[in-house]
């Protein structure tokens, strides 16, 4: 399946679909969900969710673990972090965080 180191193209492609970003949001809200749990809260067919999860897994944005007979899905922020490290300098980080906080405050938490 995955033989090369983090492929930036795959990460961007995986993030380019709103359905997949929604799945990542759901995992951020509650990490370690099964496919059934993820489907229960989505307006998508099980097949569609499975397909999107496969793209997210190929980009290592989602990683899975088995617990007994359950396959649990976890959000893996490491590839996104690597992208941010590439273009964001050490000293810019604090200012960017302040700007992001301000934006969140002005626009309200729900729209983040």
């Amino acid at each position, binding site marked *: 399946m*995955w*033989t*090369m*180191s*983090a492929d930036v193209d795959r990460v961007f492609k995986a993030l380019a679909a709103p359905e997949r970003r929604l799945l990542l949001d759901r995992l951020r809200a509650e*990490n*370690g969900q099964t496919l059934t749990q993820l489907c229960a809260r989505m307006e998508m067919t099980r097949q569609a969710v499975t397909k999107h999860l496969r793209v997210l897994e190929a980009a*290592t944005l989602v*990683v899975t*673990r088995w*617990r007994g007979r359950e396959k649990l899905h*976890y*959000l*893996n*922020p*490491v590839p996104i*972090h*690597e992208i941010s*490290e590439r273009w964001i*300098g*050490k000293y810019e*980080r604090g200012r960017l965080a302040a700007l992001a906080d301000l934006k969140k405050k002005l626009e309200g938490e729900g729209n983040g």
Partner: protein
Amino acid sequence: MAESEFVYVTYIRTTPEKLWQALTEPEFTRKFWVATVQECEWKQGATWKLVAPDGRVADAGEVVEIDPPRKLVLTWQNHLFPKMTEEGFSRMTYVLEAKGGTVKLTLTHSMEKKDSKTIKAVSNGWPYILAGLKTLLETGESLPGTDKWPEGI
């Protein structure tokens, strides 16, 4: 069943042996793990300490399982923040798997407690540490910011 848990994965162009060395030997760890040093005999049952540059013990625990260069399981208690110390021990696991020319590093950190402060704190810290580790192994240089202890802690 763990109540708070995260799983992080990174692929690093290196060998399992070199990655193991980087994860355990002080001359490597201080370059990507914010200048800390681990004190440990690296055998089952041994005490493990993560020591800050000023000598304070930041985190401590015990080696639960060790199988170089494949798997390491540690118990882990924070000692710097009382709210985290009182939560007790969390559990940290590294699994290293060679895949083609890369090594898949899977890091799991969990605690038998819902909404654990310790897990929340380490889940923010680990991506920086892992990015620094990857950069160090692939380029031989530290990532800025991962080779120094953060100010004010």
